């Protein structure tokens, strides 16, 4: 069945992005036109790429094509297989939402910022992302990877007059190049072993890879992809860079750009490196646990709405790594079926996180658009002026907290099941690691729920804090449509999880040689069950219907059946003081105070209180309160590293004297040494 036009649709999608890039740049003098061209072509590209992904997944067999470039090792090779199709589908869902959202969102740029440049960078980002997911040549992959990093840099520093954005951009570009460096070395190792830079040849040469080569390649790739994915301790750029970008870009950065790291791990670890030893899987699993727990703990301390969401990306990458790590361990211990379940858990969480994180960032973007602040302590009560945004954000918050019946629950449930199975399937110390990881996942889930209670309630509920919230308005219609689309996707992937799961069959067959989709679904296609006969079962569809069946009659009975259902409005109890004001409300800082105390060993909180008294020490005139937590990784790990590099560069200055004669001498010496080396051989 080679008749589906996968390649053609894919190429048309790329064309749409390319046209979008140049058309919006060319029309930069006419902002309204540039905006429509930019968003319109992005919608077109998303629809085409989405169709290509669906066709590619329907086709089942990989579609490959390659154009020789004339340069050795480099070729324009593409492979549209199950993994590529799946990630392109995720990308297309997000791009559709972001592009529709941007129709209104970019309006405020008109006359103030260059929409042409924005469109160019935006489309370059989309183009490079699509190519990263489909390229089948190491060098094409690296070029697309680099373009992606540069386009993202341009977008992170788009508000370049803001020093915070410039600093974040610098940090981002340095980290991005560290990861490109690691990947380049890793690919060099593989290319040397296989004699070609095609991914397919890596797969064939994997069996002949010596164990030390394999280990070195694993470390290099894991380092490179972890930096991109924001795994702790390589995460410091992520909470700095994601919040400062325009909100529609933040949603793509956290939604899909960091997932390229996950994609790379799935592609290289399962396909190109052969069967990795157990310690590799254990490393991935442990770093996953660390990222998940620390990510959510740092998120709890944030009261900048977008930074909070950025830390949650780290947490969710950790959850994905738990699945990936388990899959790696199961593969080497000879449990391909469990490995397939764990891989599905990881990949399902990848698309789920992409969708609800994109939704939450777009929601935060609407709040920022309407109120002009990301500081939760200045927001509040937004559910009244912005009911639709609030509803979409609430759905995203429930989904990201892993609560049933939405999509986050399904992938976390699968992760739990594979961790639970790990205890029986492995031996020795690895065995005890799985249940511990499971309990840490439980901790992560509960802390995430606490964090999103804070994020939603402080931003949207109760009384407005400060002046910003009083003149706010609901987001324009196109922004609501973009968020609504993702809200629907969250609900569908949650309630209809069993209909979506067969999508993973081709991917697990490609990476692990195992199809488990059919065994995951039982009883009329509504119940999800892990393959083993006594494993758990769950059905989000029935949970959803059950909740509805219980809620509707209860609501009916209580409101109609009760003899007197009288609802009067009255003031909230204000402790007898005159009138409840926003000073009485709990703040975000106060909400997380208990956890700050409990985990004080991690946070090292510091606070400063200065009170000014007028007459009596019982009635302070004003109080100055300052509280901060220690940025452990920045202070303990990166600051010494930076000092070391600076020390080294100062020493190097002795060599770099600035004199042309000295440089000529260096060149001459190098030449002589090289000639001697060459003539020796």
């Amino acid at each position, binding site marked *: 069945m080679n008749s589906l036009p996968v390649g053609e649709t894919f190429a048309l999608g790329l064309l749409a992005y390319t046209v979008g890039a140049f058309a919006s740049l060319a029309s930069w003098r006419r902002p309204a036109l540039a905006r429509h061209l930019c968003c319109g072509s992005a919608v077109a590209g998303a629809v085409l790429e989405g169709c290509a992904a669906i066709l590619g997944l329907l086709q089942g067999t990989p579609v490959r094509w390659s154009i020789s470039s004339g340069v050795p090792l480099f070729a324009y090779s593409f492979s549209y297989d199950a993994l590529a199709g799946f990630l392109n589908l995720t990308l297309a869902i997000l791009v559709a939402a972001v592009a529709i959202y941007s129709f209104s969102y970019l309006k405020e740029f008109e006359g103030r910022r260059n929409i042409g440049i924005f469109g160019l960078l935006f489309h370059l980002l989309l183009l490079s992302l699509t190519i990263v997911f489909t390229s089948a040549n190491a060098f094409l992959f690296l070029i697309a990877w680099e373009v992606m990093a540069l386009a993202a840099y341009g977008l992170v520093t788009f508000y370049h007059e803001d020093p915070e954005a410039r600093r974040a951009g610098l940090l981002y570009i340095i980290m991005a190049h560290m990861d490109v460096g690691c990947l380049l070395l890793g690919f060099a190792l593989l290319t040397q072993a296989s004699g070609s830079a095609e991914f397919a040849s890596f797969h064939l040469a994997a069996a002949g890879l010596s164990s030390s080569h394999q280990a070195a390649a694993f470390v290099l790739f894991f380092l490179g992809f972890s930096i991109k994915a924001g795994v702790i301790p390589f995460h410091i750029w992520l909470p700095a860079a994601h919040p400062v970008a325009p909100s529609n870009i933040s949603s793509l950065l956290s939604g899909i750009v960091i997932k390229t790291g996950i994609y790379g791990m799935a592609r290289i670890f399962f396909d190109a490196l052969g069967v990795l030893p157990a310690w590799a899987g254990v490393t991935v699993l442990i770093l996953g646990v660390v990222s998940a727990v620390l990510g959510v703990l740092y998120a709890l301390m944030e009261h900048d709405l977008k930074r909070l969401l950025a830390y949650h990306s780290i947490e969710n990458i950790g959850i994905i790594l738990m699945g990936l790590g388990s899959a790696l361990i199961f593969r080497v211990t000879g449990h391909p079926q469990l490995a397939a379940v764990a891989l599905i858990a990881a990949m399902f969480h990848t698309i789920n996180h992409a969708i609800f994180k994109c939704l939450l960032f777009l929601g935060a973007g609407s709040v920022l658009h309407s109120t002009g602040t990301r500081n939760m302590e200045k927001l509040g*009560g937004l559910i009244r002026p912005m009911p639709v945004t609030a509803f979409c954000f*609430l759905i995203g918050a*429930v989904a990201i*907290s*892993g609560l*049933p019946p939405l999509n986050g629950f399904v992938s976390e449930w699968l992760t*739990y*099941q594979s961790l*639970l199975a790990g*205890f*029986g399937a492995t031996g020795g110390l690895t*065995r*005890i690691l799985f*249940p*511990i990881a*499971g*309990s840490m*996942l*439980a901790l992560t*889930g*509960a802390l995430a*729920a*606490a964090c*999103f*209670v804070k994020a*939603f*309630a402080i931003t*949207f*509920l*109760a*009384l407005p804090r400060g002046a910003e919230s009083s003149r706010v308005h609901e987001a324009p219609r196109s922004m609501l449509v973009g968020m609504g689309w993702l809200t629907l996707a969250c609900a569908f992937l949650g309630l209809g999880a069993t209909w979506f799961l067969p999508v993973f069959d081709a991917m697990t067959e490609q990476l692990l040689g195992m199809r488990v989709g059919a065994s995951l679904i039982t009883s009329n296609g*509504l119940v999800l069950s892990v393959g083993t006969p006594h494993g*758990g*079962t*769950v059905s989000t569809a*029935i*949970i959803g219907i*059950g*909740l509805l069946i*219980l*809620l509707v009659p209860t609501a009916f009975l*209580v*409101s109609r059946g009760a003899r*007197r259902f009288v*609802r*009067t*409005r009255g*003031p*909230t*109890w204000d*402790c007898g003081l005159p009138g*409840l004001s926003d000073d*009485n*409300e*709990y703040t975000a800082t*106060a*909400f997380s105070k*208990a*956890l700050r105390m*409990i985990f004080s060993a991690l946070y090292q909180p510091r606070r400063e209180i200065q009170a000014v008294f007028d007459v009596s020490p019982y009635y302070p005139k004003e109080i100055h309160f300052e509280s901060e937590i220690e940025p452990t990784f920045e202070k303990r790990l990166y600051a010494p590293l930076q000092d070391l590099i600076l020390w080294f560069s100062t020493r190097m200055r002795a060599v770099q004297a600035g004199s042309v004669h000295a440089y000529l001498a260096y060149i001459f010496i190098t030449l002589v040494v090289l000639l001697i080396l060459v003539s020796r051989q």
Partner: protein
Amino acid sequence: MIEVLVKSVIQLILLLLVAPLVTGIIRTLKARLQTRRGPGIGQPYRDLFKLLRKGMVIPNTASWIFSATPYIVFGTAALVGLMIPMTATDAPLSLFGGVLAVVYLLALGRFFLALGGLDTGSSFGGLGSSREMTISAIAEPAMMLAIFTVALSANSTNLSEMARSAVSQSWRFLAPSQILAFSGLFIVLIAETGRIPVDNPATHLELTMIHEAMLLEYSGPYLALIEWGASIKQLVLMTLLVNTFFPFGLSSSWMVSGLSLGLVFYLLKLLLLACCIVLVETTNAKLRLFRVPELLAVAFILGALALISTFLF
């Protein structure tokens, strides 16, 4: 399909009736141990009946979240109650959600309850929500470890499978791993149901209250729904403990004779567990909030030891 519906309706009725009873029994026992007369076992029913017939006051500052919360709290608790074996090993909805779904559905209820607490704009609501989310977050890993231990010995996270496996080897609870897991889960039960030494269900003092602080602005039918939901949640967690560790009397079918015998055994087991809770409540003082993590750390370590002993013994 029809069978599942009929079973669900029977279990739902049982659940709605037994839940306030257990609350009443605990209160009465506690009163007797403290040499008070107590309000009588039927008091929770009278409270609910009265509250459902009263009018209510909704705070000016509250949004639709405040009004939706009581239904969600009640609905999630009732749904969870249908997934858990009460008198027969075969719970009506056990196929559609195992122990993980139970934990996460209860978390959904808690999520909305915390939102409802914050929605009023009162400091008490925020205080209660903050504490509730904190305590539940640190109780969660301990709970999951203990649950994992049981799930591993039953080879399933499905609650009916867990009960069935417990029935097939009814003295399993004497194994060290099961004893440790039970102790861990018991501490979690205390924390999750808001009892001394973690929270005091009888207080309205701002320094100590957790659960009550979130409900401060609720009145009338909404309060009734939340209180009823809370007692169902308590019953569900107690059932989880008695039926997965001590499966005596669990009927293997839905025949009337088996069910009635099962019901008698079930009520007896609940009574015993209630006695344990009452003893703990009466002999302990409430802990300071920041000492609670230490108690839950004990539960976590008990869970970890339980897991390790499953493959040592």
